């Protein structure tokens, strides 16, 4: 055997933020990627021809505003570390789209997949959605259209789901521990996307103790066939690593071998680190496995010290469950139930009411979301939102690919809202023009 050379060139954007944490003993803390760094360096990963380490970019406020309505303003819901983390994802995506690297892995923190379209504070260790910020950046500047985001974090990526709920061009697939047993308590198979994007959100909840076998079966039977049909321009892996059998805050039995094999099957263009809090027993091995799998290299010796495939085998009951849920999800994609059945409508708008709890910032939010039922496009988005911190906010988005009529309606609503004294804070995103505006009274 001689020195390995990467089959796919891989750019690794590594930013462990060793001086940033939510709080000193929080799971998402300084030390989180320390042993991953040690393992990657000791393995000489960045000396392998074809694997290169890169410094992240820093995201601009405009990159965040393109995606999020953030109250009272964007700056107050994030820190420099978030901008660098999002900038790391942007760097990863840009390198791939520019052809500088075949694939890229943003090994950055803090994570982002619990951050929703509207942000009042931190949820599930997330303040801004770094994948969505990257995807919308790539759409704005690199002509990307259809995107698939496959979220393999143990927690349902309710933030990413929320951002892309109405977007038929973004397929969001989440594999996660059943919401009845874990934060954030959502992600059931019936959540399949808004009226104009039915089947573009797919949720595959898995029971506690699901192991490699279950995850890989879902890849083979659901994810891969759906992706083959959807034909995305770009596949993004929200690479959370907390399905690991040693993770302290979840209950699954996934292994480094499993994560690496999942990556081989998924073959993502871009991976972005999400959760994963077994910082000694899992992350060093899982991250190494993902890096090697993305580069197309041998990972057969990447095993946790306490890895025992026999003791991690899943019960027959789980096999049966996985099979059943896979059938349901496949049906949700290929023949989604009609939107008229389940969605309330008011003055030509589909209406959805939500309550959101920001567990990291201890804020509650109530919102009413309106999507114009337009025959020409996915429809103007309007959200009324109030939180325990700030009341009566309004958010308006003229989405990508909106028709002129929706654009005019958005403009009119923004002007009308500014003139009225109903709202304390109005935020307006116009993706047709590539502009954002803020208005506060």
């Amino acid at each position, binding site marked *: 055997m001689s020195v390995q050379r990467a089959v796919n060139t891989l750019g690794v954007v590594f930013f462990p933020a060793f001086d940033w944490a939510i709080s000193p003993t929080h799971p998402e803390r300084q030390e989180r990627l320390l042993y991953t760094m040690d393992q990657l*360096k000791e393995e000489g990963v960045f000396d392998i021809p074809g694997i290169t380490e890169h410094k992240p970019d820093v995201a601009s406020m405009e990159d965040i505003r393109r995606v999020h309505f953030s109250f009272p303003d964007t700056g107050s819901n994030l820190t420099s570390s978030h901008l660098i983390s999002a900038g790391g994802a942007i760097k990863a995506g840009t390198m791939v789209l520019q052809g500088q690297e075949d694939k890229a892995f943003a090994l950055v923190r803090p994570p982002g997949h619990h951050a929703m379209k509207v942000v009042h504070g931190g949820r599930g260790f997330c303040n801004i959605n770094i994948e969505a910020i990257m995807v919308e950046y790539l759409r704005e500047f690199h002509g990307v259209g259809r995107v698939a985001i496959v979220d393999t974090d143990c927690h349902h990526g309710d933030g990413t789901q929320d951002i892309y709920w109405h977007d038929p061009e973004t397929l969001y697939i989440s594999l996660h521990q059943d919401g009845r047993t874990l934060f954030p308590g959502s992600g059931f198979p019936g959540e399949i996307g808004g009226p104009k994007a039915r089947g573009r959100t797919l949720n595959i909840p898995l029971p506690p103790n699901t192991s490699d076998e279950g995850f890989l079966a879902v890849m083979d039977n659901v994810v891969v066939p759906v992706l083959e049909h959807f034909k995305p321009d770009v596949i993004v892996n929200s690479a959370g690593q907390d399905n690991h059998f040693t993770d302290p805050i979840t209950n699954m039995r996934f292994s480094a071998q499993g994560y690496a094999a999942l990556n081989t099957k998924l073959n993502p263009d871009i991976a972005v680190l999400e959760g994963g809090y077994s910082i000694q027993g899992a992350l060093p091995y899982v991250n190494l496995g993902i890096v090697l799998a993305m580069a197309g290299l041998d990972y057969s010796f990447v095993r946790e010290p306490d890895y025992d495939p026999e003791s991690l085998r899943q019960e027959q009951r789980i096999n049966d469950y996985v099979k059943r849920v896979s059938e349901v999800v496949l049906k949700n994609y290929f023949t989604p139930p009609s939107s008229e059945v389940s969605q309330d409508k008011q003055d030509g708008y589909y209406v959805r009411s939500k309550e959101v709890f920001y567990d990291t910032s201890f804020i509650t939010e109530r919102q009413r979301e309106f999507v114009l039922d337009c025959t020409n496009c996915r429809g103007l988005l309007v959200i009324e939102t109030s939180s325990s911190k700030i009341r009566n906010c309004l958010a308006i988005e003229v989405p990508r690919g909106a028709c002129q009529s929706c654009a005019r309606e958005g403009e009119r609503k923004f002007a009308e809202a500014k003139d009225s004294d109903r709202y304390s804070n109005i935020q307006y995103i116009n993706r047709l023009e590539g502009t954002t505006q803020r208005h506060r009274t």
Partner: protein
Amino acid sequence: MLLGIDVGGTHTDAVLLDTNGLVDSAKVVTNHDDLLSSVRAALEAILTDRGQIDLERFNLSTTLCTNAIIQNELSDVGVLVSAGPGIDPNFFRIGQHYSVIPGGLDHRGTEIQSLDLDRARQTVDDWLGKDVRVFAAINKFSPRNPSHEKQMAELLDGRADFLTLGHTLSGQLNFPRRIATAYYNSAVWPIFNGFANSVHQCVQEFGLSPQLNILKADGGTMPFEQARQTPVESIFSGPAASIMGITSMCDIHEDALLLDIGGTTTDVAVFADGDPLIEAESIELEHRPTLVRAMKTKSIGLGGDSCITVQEGQLSIGPKRLGACLAQGGPAPTLVDALNSAKCFAYGDIEASDKGMQELGGSLEMSCEGFSWQVIQSFCRRIKEDAQAMLREINERPVYTVHEFLEYRKVAPKRLYLMGGPAEVLAPYISQEFGLPVVVPDNYAVANALGAAIARPTQQAELFADTEKRTMSIPVLGVFQDISSRYSLEQAKTDVKNHLRQAMADRFHMEVTEQEAEIIEESEMSMVKDIYSVGKDIRVKCQVKPGISPEYEGVVKCLCKEL
């Protein structure tokens, strides 16, 4: 007095200096088959008829180990490796005798599989039977815990001529590099050791008994006794010698670039605040990256003898050298001919230059002079582009904290130093291209030997403390200690400085001040189990950087003409 000898590819240079300046210099032709004779010849040239001198130090920069590797005059090495989980260690196989012994440690140095001593013993016995005399033992994560390397050493005790233990080479984590570095260290040991003996004897024959040091690729020196332990560090010391010489002669103390325009390449070195940049992971040997620290340099495939061609209507310079320039009767036009025809200078047969440039320029429908200027300009532009690419790479170096990201200090050269044959003529055009002042030192011919002579010992040491395990280690200094659970970053900084200063005094005969042992990286992180802090992970990197003995600082100056 100091004596410096640089055994280079073509010439061996020597200088003798005292605190008042240069006493003498000499140049002899290098004999590749017998480097010792070159050293002896240089010594003779300097010392004959000089009478008794008080020689304090003799610093030697030699291509001995580099040549041994390039010409594959390496000894067979028995390489024992233990790995644990990760990349299959068979991918790092090197040499004829390489064996992966079952056993492994994790990233915190915790043993997860004990070393299979029976297997190791059998392997060693087998190799000894095949007359393998030198060995290398490397375990994954040995800077965290070298216990497997030490167990392998015990097995070999008294039976090997030489053994390299991975953790003694560097505290840097990089298993494949540590394997390659340990392998080469053992593979060149027999040649180096013999050479060191001969040089020692040779110096004695001249009636001298100075401290004997070898120059390293990072611009520092190590005494012969130390070099016998880490001969691999003497590779590629030539460029470091020149850079140290120029640093001393020109008194550089800001961000700067040094461009050395040779026959076929232009070598670039970078200074930050006057210190040459050093890389911990730079040198490759036979395409194997190593852990040998070296001056950060880049070789651009463009020099005074690079031939000029026109292909498909496009001007191209280098990277080939077909011979001397036309002005010297060579076969093809080079930069020198372009400088002749542009009337920048008059060198050799100007008519031959003009004829060649006329012909090539004609194919592009350009006048001889116009074409010559284009060659000069595109030469300067390529140098600038490549130098800027190097700077970009340096300035894009990953950082791991928000603070460093926000406070990042970029290297931005304020001045260029230009050396080599066409330096003086090219200086105004290089200056214009870069938009920076250019300095051309005169008398740089002695820079390499001078650099060797004035260089001082360097050493880097990485301290790692784990207060949960209550252990502290400085692998390269062989320090492995128990500590209290209250051990702090401040304590770690004091410890690494003291140990480094002590080691410099013991091993390198050098008194290092508190300031000279500088902390270059430090971090302290809480280790948390569940929600309780169980200890601290403390890391400190300390170095004694390359420098010049104070009493010899600036004793040899050159006229640095700014153009």
